[in-house]
């Protein structure tokens, strides 16, 4: 009996050992982790980013790799499951020994992996526009903060004479925060509370009849009305279809969206949407040579001439190139060295300029406003003349208006309170 029990123990050890193995590979390549969902609800958006990363790694290898070594992309599938994101992040860093990770889309997935990256001191490049209110030593935010997307969009519409605002969003943290910021911003510009309507819907909401009808009534009050949409992914198609069918056209009530890009539009019949707006830091239609080359490379890599490019892809393009430059500058892939080296590094973006990594781990970007065209592309109708720096702590929220972030020594703090002179997260 005892003998058999010992057998089982040995078996268990063996099993555990087999799980743990695979870490023993020799490091003759530099590994880059790709942490994007390939199945589940988020696969729609994230698969493209995985392909983008594979393409960028391939291109870099064609140029001779990095520090004399080839790059190797390690792809895992966190399956749109948030705890799994943390587990896979740990696997990438601890087991696969990747030097940096490019990944995540939703805020919750980023929140889920954040402690892992901080504990193991690795690097995460996060490519999607988000609600701000965060700054981590280990995360580089290459997507837009609210001041790089939402506020310029509202300014643009105000310039067109919009007086009444519908803030419609999916009920999660990005729309909630963005709308809080916008509400405070609009009120600071003298918009009355009665001229702001806020509406939240669940994920994947598909029956928009009542809400669109309500928007229509709200917009019939005689003042120029616009909808600021932070509606997420899947819910957009039925929303726009309903808008089109109920006759809410862009010249009557324009909708400006922050989560609708070329990729989302490729799944919609865009004819009824022509003229509705989106605010991004990049459009596929931007006319310059870097962008043209990028699109060409992408089409060749994915072997499909019809595939579109979008803003988060550009963010990965910027983030990856920044990382490459920082590694070259530091001469090592060591996370701490790269963290120091990357601040201040500027690389070409695809909108025809340069983006730089700022001390708050956010980057500088131009803001573009585009109108949806019948072919599913955007036509830029307005653009900031210069670059806008990502503002991690919004000036329009009570909790964060006194906070700043600067990861350079000697401050090296993600949430320094300028009033109290304290860094609140430091123990």
């Amino acid at each position, binding site marked *: 009996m005892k003998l058999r029990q010992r057998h089982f123990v040995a078996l268990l050890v063996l099993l555990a050992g087999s799980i743990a193995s695979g870490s023993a590979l020799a490091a003759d390549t530099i590994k880059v982790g790709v942490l994007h969902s390939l*199945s589940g609800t988020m696969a729609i958006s994230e698969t493209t980013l995985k392909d983008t990363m594979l393409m960028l790694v391939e291109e870099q290898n064609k140029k001779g790799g990095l520090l004399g070594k080839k790059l190797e992309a390690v792809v*895992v599938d966190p399956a749109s499951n948030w*705890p799994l994101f943390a*587990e896979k992040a740990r696997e990438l860093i601890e087991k696969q020994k990747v030097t940096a990770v490019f990944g995540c889309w939703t805020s*919750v997935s980023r929140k*889920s992996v954040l*402690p892992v990256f901080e504990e193991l001191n690795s690097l995460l490049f996060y490519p999607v526009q988000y609600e701000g209110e965060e700054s981590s030593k280990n995360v580089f935010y290459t997507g837009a903060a609210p001041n790089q997307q939402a506020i310029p969009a509202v300014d643009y519409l105000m310039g067109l004479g919009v007086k009444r605002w519908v803030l419609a969003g999916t*009920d999660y943290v990005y729309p909630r925060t963005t709308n809080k910021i916008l509400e405070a911003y609009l009120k600071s510009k003298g918009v009355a509370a009665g001229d702001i309507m806020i509406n939240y819907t669940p994920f994947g909401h598909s029956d928009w009849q009542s809400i669109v009808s309500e928007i229509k009534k709200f917009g019939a009050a005689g003042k120029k009305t616009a909808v600021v949409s932070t509606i997420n992914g899947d819910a957009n198609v039925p929303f726009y279809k309903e808008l089109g069918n109920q006759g809410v056209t862009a010249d009557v009530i324009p909708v400006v969206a922050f989560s609708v890009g070329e990729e989302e539009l490729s799944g919609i019949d865009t004819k009824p949407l022509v003229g509705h707006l989106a605010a991004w830091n990049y459009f596929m239609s931007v006319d310059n040579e870097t962008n043209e080359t990028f699109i060409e490379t992408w089409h060749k890599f994915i072997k499909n001439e019809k595939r579109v490019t979008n803003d988060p892809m550009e963010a990965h393009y910027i983030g990856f190139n920044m990382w490459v430059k920082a590694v070259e500058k530091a001469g090592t892939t060591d996370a701490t060295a790269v963290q120091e080296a990357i601040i201040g590094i500027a690389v070409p973006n695809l909108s025809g300029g340069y983006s730089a990594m700022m001390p708050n781990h956010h980057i500088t970007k131009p803001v573009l406003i585009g109108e949806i065209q019948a072919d599913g592309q955007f036509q830029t109708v307005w653009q900031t003349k210069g670059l806008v720096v990502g503002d991690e702590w919004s000036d329009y929220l009570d909790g964060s208006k006194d906070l700043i972030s600067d990861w350079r020594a000697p401050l090296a703090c993600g949430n320094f309170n300028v009033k109290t002179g304290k860094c609140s997260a430091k123990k």
Partner: protein
Amino acid sequence: MTIFTHLYKEDRAGGVLLGLLLAAGLLVPVLNLGLGEAHPLHLSTYTVTLLGKYLCYALLAMAVDMAWGYLGILTLGHGAFFALGGYAMGMYLMRQIGSRGVYGHPLLPDFMVFLNWKELPWFWHGFDGFIFALLMVMAVPGLLAFLFGWFAFRSRVTGVYLSIMTQALTYALMLAFFRNDLGFGGNNGLTDFKEILGFSLQADGTRAGLFAASAAALALGYLACRFITRSRLGKLCTAIRDQEDRARFIGYRVEAAKLWVFVFSAVLAGIAGALYVPQVGIINPTEFAPLASIEAVVWVAVGGRATLYGAVLGALIINYAKSYLTAAFPDAWLFGLGALFVLVTLFLPQGVAGLLQMVPFRKKGGTP
């Protein structure tokens, strides 16, 4: 040791399971903490957390097996109890952050600060105490199960209807928890935990400790389930599962028996959730998703119904397969998982446990 010898005679598989758990509970922390990283037998922290997570799933599977295997209630909503236990623990962990959140607020968790909440909602009070949180881990799922069961069993909702009702329950809870207004962090859930009982959650020692605690919880859970299933109550449950009306006509209070076992099962799931949260570091409404609950049922089916140890086995096998396949074949792993479900139900109706029983493992009688 006597309990093992006793168990081994009575219930060989169970004895093996307990022995394994004991061994794992002791060995895994030693291999993780005691051996250097270079040692061939060293277990990485990644593996320890992973195994800890599996054990929590195994405990959930056992809870599902109590309801399905012994009570005949195909619950498609046990994820709800699991998640509620997890949220109770998450609330304790959030309160432990104290003023170390990014905004440095002494009382409010970060997500409340940046949504402009001014004070702590009433239901967050008390969760700064571990004992209170522990009570809630069991009380909240238990109470929900009690209310649900009280209504459902009294009006004799059975079979498929009951299954769908449990699904509606967890679905409604998922939608509710997604709402930011509810005060549980909405979609982002609760995260960024710092420490439990004063031990840093990022320390290897804490992780090893949590693993040992999960192993202990699973072992104790097994003993408790076994005790119940072998008691008069357990036998009555089996009778109810097989012929509810007959049991009722004989004069048993069918509703009461069902209710208590159902509540017990929910509490078990709650404990599993509470152990799960500090190990994975996040709790979010997707744990309420109907799909998650169905997966738990699938573990039990794969492992083998009404054997308890089968549930544990199923949870471990499927989750290991999932971890392995998502890394090895990210594009195709769903094919494998889907095919596994189909094949097991078609060719292994008794699950893996049934397969084990077919193997001439034990020669001398003894029914499990």
